[in-house]
């Protein structure tokens, strides 16, 4: 039986009342009336000690008795038929126990995994790979958007390389543009980016019986891997255990079991020995996914009073052998009409994959510069212009906070004024994302000695899920978070989502809260029965159990747990979600201050202010870290990263970490991460996801800051010195 409750949602200064029907046995969603003891405080990561001592075992670290070491052989050609593969020399090589062919008919990109070996030592595996003889019949190939788009281009997979063509239209675009006071037309381009998780893809596979398999996998989706492996190997789901207690990054590349990971399981099966097969860094760059490039033609209009009118978008990008190059636009700002046509172009390169906020950093790079250009055209302050076209109350509040923190009023006017060599500038951009979560379950166990565990089978890829689970359970049970042991990453435990779409927190944390709520009720019932008091008189706060009118005062948690009748109380819950929340998804905005050396074209980011909401802030430390990390990846995309393919050989020229550039400590600006707390009410923890939004606005904010500094637009990423100099010297 449910009861009707009224929730105060939103944020101070923008409060709304909503009604929700809450089932008996479920907690009332946290709202603005809630008072929290630990939620929103800084809590150190539970696994922190393990990580700083090297005790934390990632998949790559697993060493098992009798384990074989695997290596992959990549295709030497970007496009070829395979006429034959001779593995006999490899099979005879010292220490080699298995050889598996991954591709025997054709290859579509240089570095595509073709075969795998498993040997007693890594060195023997390395030697054996070189003994595999592949007879290639090279074919013509294309690795640029222009070459692949030609009518007579060799097909990368089947049919035309130009695919996923989609046209959308809303409203009367031409009339609105014709009557606009200002129209700006520009083309923006962004590069292919690879994920570069520091731990590569890989697996350790061990057969426990003929049809029971345990794997350690560096994955963003433990249950996805379980499903993939069970199907591929023809065994039951419940006989596959996937372990991913620590994962060294993913950023979107690690969903599901890759073919080479299935192959490792097969080699383990054939040899009767565990097999560890990790991708080497080169294979990781070329074969494990990438963010498509973009070429975005945009034409947009605005009125003198600051209203946006219409936008025409034509976008494309290269996707390797699979995926789509969609950019998210138009989003965030209120265009009255739009016309959009998009396509994706296949080239002979590794398949694209979702990468942190797919379509958004590149889309916003174009959109938020276009918005800035329109503001300039009507001579309106770009912040004021955005406010007039943004109806999101959260982002409007975030603008105020960010603008004040960066010192928006003091920025260079007009853009590019002055003639000093090194010019500073300030720019801004916005974000919009989902992260509302999906179904998940959690289990809370309270032990007779007072110990508490909370379980979920999903993974923590560095976001801090583990600690957030402990904080939520601790909040519900009135305990300090260090008393709660969060156990994650093993598929024996309750269902959790893949870490994608920023959905993990909003899926798992409400389930944790609901399970903790039920565990609390059970424990209260046991204590009440034992002490002969009404259940309603039992309360949990400050690490103790307080009984109303109890002469002896509050009972220590451990003593209270000893009153339970059995050895433990186990409570599970399946996440509830509610219709009547405050707002779907999240907003976010960033303000960047940059320095441009007008002689060398070097752009240095001095400061970024990032204001980001994610529903309720659960662990302030990990929320701030997530925002910081997103900004740094945004800077990397803006200034440094570029997957460079050699047009004449089809190989990636920089499949490493010295010429595929990532920012380090010497590039680190001051980052002010400002979490913006919103009581969302769509789930019992009022949590929304955070992983992706902080990476979205950064490149656009930097580009707008470069414009403010120099008066010149850089419409291409990465903003390397040569690109910046070309913009400085080119037309305005």
């Amino acid at each position, binding site marked *: 039986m449910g009861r009707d409750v009224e929730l105060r949602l939103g944020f101070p200064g923008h409060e709304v009342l909503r009604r929700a029907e809450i089932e008996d046995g479920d907690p009332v969603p946290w709202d603005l009336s809630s008072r929290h003891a630990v939620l929103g405080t800084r809590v150190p990561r539970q696994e922190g000690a393990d990580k700083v001592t090297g005790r934390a075992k990632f998949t790559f670290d697993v060493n098992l008795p009798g384990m074989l070491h695997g290596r992959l052989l990549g295709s030497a050609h970007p496009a070829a038929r395979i006429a034959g593969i001779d593995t006999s020399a490899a099979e005879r090589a010292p220490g080699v126990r298995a050889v598996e062919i991954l591709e025997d008919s054709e290859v579509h990109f240089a570095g595509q995994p073709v075969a795998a070996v498993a040997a007693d030592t890594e060195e023997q595996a390395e030697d054996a790979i070189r003994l595999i003889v592949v007879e290639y019949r090279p074919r013509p190939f294309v690795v640029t958007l222009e070459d692949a788009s030609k009518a007579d281009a060799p097909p990368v997979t089947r049919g035309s390389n130009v695919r996923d063509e989609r046209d959308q239209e809303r409203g009367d675009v031409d009339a609105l543009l014709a009557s606009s006071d200002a129209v700006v037309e520009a083309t923006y381009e962004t590069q292919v980016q690879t994920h570069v998780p520091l731990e590569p893809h890989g697996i350790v596979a061990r057969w426990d019986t003929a049809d029971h398999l345990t794997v350690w996998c560096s994955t963003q989706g433990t249950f996805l891997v379980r499903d993939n492996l069970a199907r591929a190997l023809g065994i039951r789901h419940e006989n596959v255990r996937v372990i991913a207690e620590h994962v060294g990054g993913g950023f979107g590349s690690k969903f599901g079991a890759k073919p080479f990971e299935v192959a490792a399981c097969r080699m383990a099966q054939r040899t009767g020995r565990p097999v560890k097969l990790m991708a080497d860094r080169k294979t990781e760059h070329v074969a494990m996914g990438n963010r498509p490039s973009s070429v975005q033609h945009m034409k947009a209009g605005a009125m003198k009073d600051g209203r946006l009118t219409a936008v025409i978008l034509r976008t494309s990008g290269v996707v390797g052998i699979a995926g789509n190059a969609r950019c998210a636009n138009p989003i965030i700002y209120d265009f009255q009409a739009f016309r959009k046509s998009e396509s994706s172009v296949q080239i002979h390169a590794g398949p694209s994959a979702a990468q942190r906020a797919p379509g958004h950093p590149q889309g916003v790079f174009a959109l938020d510069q276009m918005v800035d250009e329109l503001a300039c055209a009507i001579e309106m302050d770009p912040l004021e212009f955005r406010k007039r076209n943004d109806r999101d109350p959260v982002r409007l509040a975030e603008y105020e906070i960010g603008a004040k923190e960066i010192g928006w009023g003091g920025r260079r006017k007009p853009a590019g004024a002055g003639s000093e060599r090194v010019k500073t500038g300030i720019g801004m951009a916005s974000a919009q994302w989902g992260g509302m979560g999906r179904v998940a379950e959690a289990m809370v166990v309270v032990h007779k000695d007072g110990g508490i565990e909370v379980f979920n089978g999903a993974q923590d890829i560095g976001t801090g899920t583990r600690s957030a689970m402990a904080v939520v359970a601790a909040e519900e049970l009135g305990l300090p978070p260090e008393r709660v042991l969060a156990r994650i990453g093993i598929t024996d435990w309750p269902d959790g989502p893949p870490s994608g779409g920023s959905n993990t927190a909003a899926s798992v944390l409400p389930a944790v809260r609901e399970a903790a709520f039920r565990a609390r009720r059970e424990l209260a019932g046991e204590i009440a029965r034992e002490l002969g008091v009404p259940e309603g008189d039992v309360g949990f706060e400050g690490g103790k159990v307080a009984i109303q009118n109890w002469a002896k005062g509050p009972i220590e948690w451990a003593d209270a747990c000893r009153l339970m009748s059995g050895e433990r109380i186990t409570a599970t819950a399946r996440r509830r979600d509610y219709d009547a929340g405050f707002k779907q998804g999240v907003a976010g905005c960033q303000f960047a201050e940059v320095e441009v050396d007008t002689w060398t074209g070097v752009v240095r980011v001095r400061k970024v202010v990032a204001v980001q909401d994610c529903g309720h802030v659960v662990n302030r430390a990990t929320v701030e870290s997530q925002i910081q*990390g997103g900004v*740094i990846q945004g800077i990397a995309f803006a200034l440094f990263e570029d997957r460079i393919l050699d047009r004449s050989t089809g190989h990636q020229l920089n499949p490493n970490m010295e010429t595929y550039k990532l920012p380090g400590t010497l590039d680190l600006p001051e980052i002010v991460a400002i979490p913006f707390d919103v009581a969302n009410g769509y789930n019992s923890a009022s949590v929304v996801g955070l992983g992706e939004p902080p990476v979205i606005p950064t490149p656009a904010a930097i580009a707008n800051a470069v414009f403010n500094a120099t008066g010149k637009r850089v419409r291409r990423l990465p903003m390397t010195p040569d690109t910046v100099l070309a913009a400085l010297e080119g037309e305005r």
Partner: protein
Amino acid sequence: MGGTVAAGAALSGGARADEGDGPPVAESDRVLGPEAVRITIALNGENRTLDVEPRVTLLDLLRSSLDLTGAKKICDRGACGGCTVLLDGEPVNSCLVLAIDADGREVRTVEGLAADGALTPLQEEFVRHDALQCGFCTPGFVMSCHALLSRNPDPTEAEVRAACAGNICRCGAYSGVLAAAMAAAKRRR
């Protein structure tokens, strides 16, 4: 290190009595292998004697033969610092050190920083300042900072940045690392 057969022949002024069809063999006692060689390393304060092929890196020796997996194999070519260990007290990329070149020397890994499961002040500050996210780069950063504080107990933030300039963090936990190192330095004072 050694020389080719051709150079050796030129120096000795004529054909050698033991010429054969095999690959060139340098006439030098500093060339080892391909078979395994016995080395002794002072590893985390304890002498270890091991047989290792000359081509094996110190990183691979630590991770595969000794189950010391704190040092990570990320780029395997010295570009990311994830494999940082101390060799005679100096931070090195262990993927660029041959195990045989650690013979007779002191090697300290992240596992050897603190005794009995405790944390050093630096490690405590890493946890306190959230100087980590996924944690894969963390041992490398800890070793770089540890090495810095050992030689310079009162660094400036610029010196901490420089000491960690060879360590890459893809998750972007750099701010926490800098704060942690500065806080650890302060605690020492």
